[in-house]
């Protein structure tokens, strides 16, 4: 077990309003992220108040994007997010993860 090789990557998670989801995914792609996972219906509360997707236009609903990627890519995304997501309901954070197939991410 101890001999299993450990490969470190970063996980970036973005909670954002659904309206800009396509935009965020395009941004990730351009930055060189090769895959992502989306939890499409997520509620929340933050500076912009309650957002629980309870109304007809559904603009008050969030999505949660998860992407595993290389450290440099993740850091760049984190830094750029400040400017990029300024006007929208959104948060971004990074976290260390270990993966088994380094070629995958």
């Amino acid at each position, binding site marked *: 077990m101890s001999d299993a090789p450990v490969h470190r990557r970063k996980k970036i998670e973005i909670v954002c*309003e659904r*309206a*800009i989801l*396509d*935009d965020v995914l*395009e*941004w990730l792609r351009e930055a060189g992220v090769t895959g992502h996972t989306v939890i499409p219906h997520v509620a929340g509360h933050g500076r912009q*108040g*309650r957002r629980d*997707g*309870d*109304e*007809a*236009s*559904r*603009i*008050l609903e969030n999505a949660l994007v998860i992407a595993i990627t290389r450290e440099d890519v993740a850091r760049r995304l984190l830094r750029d997010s400040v400017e990029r997501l300024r*006007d*929208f309901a959104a948060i971004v954070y990074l976290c260390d993860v270990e993966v088994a197939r380094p070629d995958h991410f």
Partner: protein
Amino acid sequence: MPADILSLAGANLLSPMTLCFALGALAAFVRSDLEFPDAIAKGLAIYLMLAIGMKGGVALAGGASTDAILAIVVAGFVSFLLPVVAYALLRAATRAAAVDAAAIGAHYGSVSVVTFVTASEFLAARGMTFEGYLVAMMAVMETPAIVMGLLLARRAGFAGPRSAAATRHLWREVLFNGSIVLLVGGFLIGWIVGAPGYAKVKPFLGDLFNGLLCLFLLDMGVVAMRQLRAAPALSPALVGFALVQPLIGAAVGLGLGSALGLSVGGVALFATLCASASYIAVPAAMRLALPKANPALYLTLSLGVTFPFNVAIGIPLYTAIATALRP
């Protein structure tokens, strides 16, 4: 005539549809856990739009007149121009910021399908008919207001969408949003198949219309009241705007509708379209294109104030005036 208005309003307030709306609002007010699953609400909306579209198409089947085409073009222009009126009124009479005024304006230029549908049932219950192409007028009014809203915002110094994806998304929303596809598509299908084809689907798309509208209005009551409760306190000036702007819109609709030579029912419906405000398509577009505008404002005004006002008071009022205007 005032007696007339009162009796119309009374009858309207006591119809199963309006009472269902009130029940939903009450449930949300006492914070009942009554909740329509989102999928059901969307399914009902799809039904209502397809059904009303097809009904309109069947009514027009066979012929399309220059009357119809003229009315449709006029409706598009009205939707394009009403935001300017709303913008001016907001800037003059309230403290709304320019970007908020532009976004709110776009909502009032566009239309609310449920308000239209409620009005059409109100007329039907009184034996009044209307031109089939009113449905096409509604479809065409859905989105020109979005473009004007963006122009107003740009004039005030706010850029539109920044990324290519957002721009594409916005144009798809303007041209092909789901409501337009269903209304126009249903209209064309009704127009093509005519009465014989419609007979096959009438038990579903025709006979159940009122009942399903009840269910939908029950949900709308919940949604509108929740929006009102969750919203920050609105200034009296803003609430006033959300009550006066529909009257201005209705006046425009009554005038132009008469000038176009629409039937009494048609004039009342066109007034209702002009008076109503979008709460589905336009918010979605504004959120993308004008993120600096405050969604709590535009949603609360259109859904929390103007929508119930039109359903309870506006529709019978516009109908009574349209009746009185009959030459």
